[in-house]
């Protein structure tokens, strides 16, 4: 059996009107986004099940740094190491 590693985990994100994250809820605790370090987009596999993601490297109020992305086809947010 093959189990993919580093699968995306759904996460609650509050974003502004431009889709930039303002706060992330991790283990039921809100952490404010202090800085967006990097933003990039991935579009792939449009010929079968389209993958369109906008990734953000975020610096949070507890000094941690995480990577999240928004699935642009469904609108949901996920956390994933890149």
């Amino acid at each position, binding site marked *: *059996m093959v189990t993919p590693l580093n699968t995306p985990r759904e996460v609650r994100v509050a974003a502004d009107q431009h889709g930039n994250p*303002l*706060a992330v809820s991790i283990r039921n605790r809100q952490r404010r986004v202090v800085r967006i370090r990097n933003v990039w987009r991935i579009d792939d596999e449009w010929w079968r099940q389209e993958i369109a993601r906008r990734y953000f490297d975020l610096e949070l*109020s507890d000094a941690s740094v995480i990577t999240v992305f928004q699935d642009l086809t469904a609108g949901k947010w996920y956390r994933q190491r890149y």
Partner: protein
Amino acid sequence: MQTLCLFIPHLPVQWERRKHPELARAALIVGGFPYERTAVLDCSEEAAVQGVSPGMPLRQASHRCPGAVFLPADEAGCAGASGEVLGLLDRFSPAVEPDGPGRAFIDISGTEQLFGPAGDLAGQVSRLILRQAGFQSRIGVAGSKFVAGIAASLASAGPLIVEGGRERPFLAPLSIEFLPLAPEATAWLKRLGLRTMGQVAGLPLNALDSQLGRDGLMAHRLANGIDQRPVTPGPGPDTLAETLSFEQPLGSLEALLTALGRLLGRLTPRLRSRYQVCHQIRLCLRSGDGRAWPHTLNLKTPSDSRPGMLGILKRHLEAASFPEGVSEIHLVLAGLHGESGRQAPLSTGTKGLQAEALQRLNSGLRERFGRNPLKRVVEIDSGSRIPERRVALVDPDAGG
């Protein structure tokens, strides 16, 4: 007994402003974002004058003060700041009792020889808290914890000192809301027309005893300024701190790291002597004009290693810039706890031995659990732009 009560008003707001000096004059509301169904934890004076108060729903607060900056509550940060303040109070007396976030009692009996009269000592405490922790504080001094606590909450810029024997007249005009009673008991006293502690103090003891029992007796004693509870020192502060000041501000990262190395050189032996590891590093860099850059770093693996922590600080500071130079470094090791265990390497570095060790582990686990919970990490498509397509776990017996 002479007791000093230190009270840091609006600790959540002061803590956020310490982290973000640019918010010094902003209307600030702490507790969450306006769309959340929670309440205001604390707010700045700028928000309070527009009708915002703690306990109010955040949505309502955003209507009353639309220009306010909303921030989620940072309980861990505030607790850490309280611990830091407790660590500073240790310098004045060995008997320091924490009393919730931003509040502490100190037994200052017999400290006149060291620090002078109570007023001088209060001034020293408040200046130290402002300089080292960056918090404005209020101080009350009295012969008991109850009166000192109320004095601190009523104090303004200077300390409020209630001289011995003046407790009862000091308390008399104050509201019964100050008495530590259940809301029902306070409501009952109000229904009887009792509004001030002076009125409660003048009641016959039997009347309060028959109506409120032990709480009534306690209220009567406190309203008369009688409180014999001693200051009970809490557990030692969960932090270790050191400060270095420089006449010439440090301008380069190398100089900063050398200074941090010196501070860690003092702190880590103390940490090891307690058989503890540290979970969090708090760093406050101060420029010559008093501006502060606080940083909090949570360690993935708790550590007592000087090089390890210095490496983490280096990586963090490389991205920062300090154009005005650094004239003071305050370094705190926090989240201290005993080292309960450390992940040992799964096997030795030698290839043959590694395979043999894994084989042994494999059969041991299979024997114990009936199946092998170990998996092998294999590369699927290491260059994929989609992270979950790069590596996967497979059964160790599978080929490939």
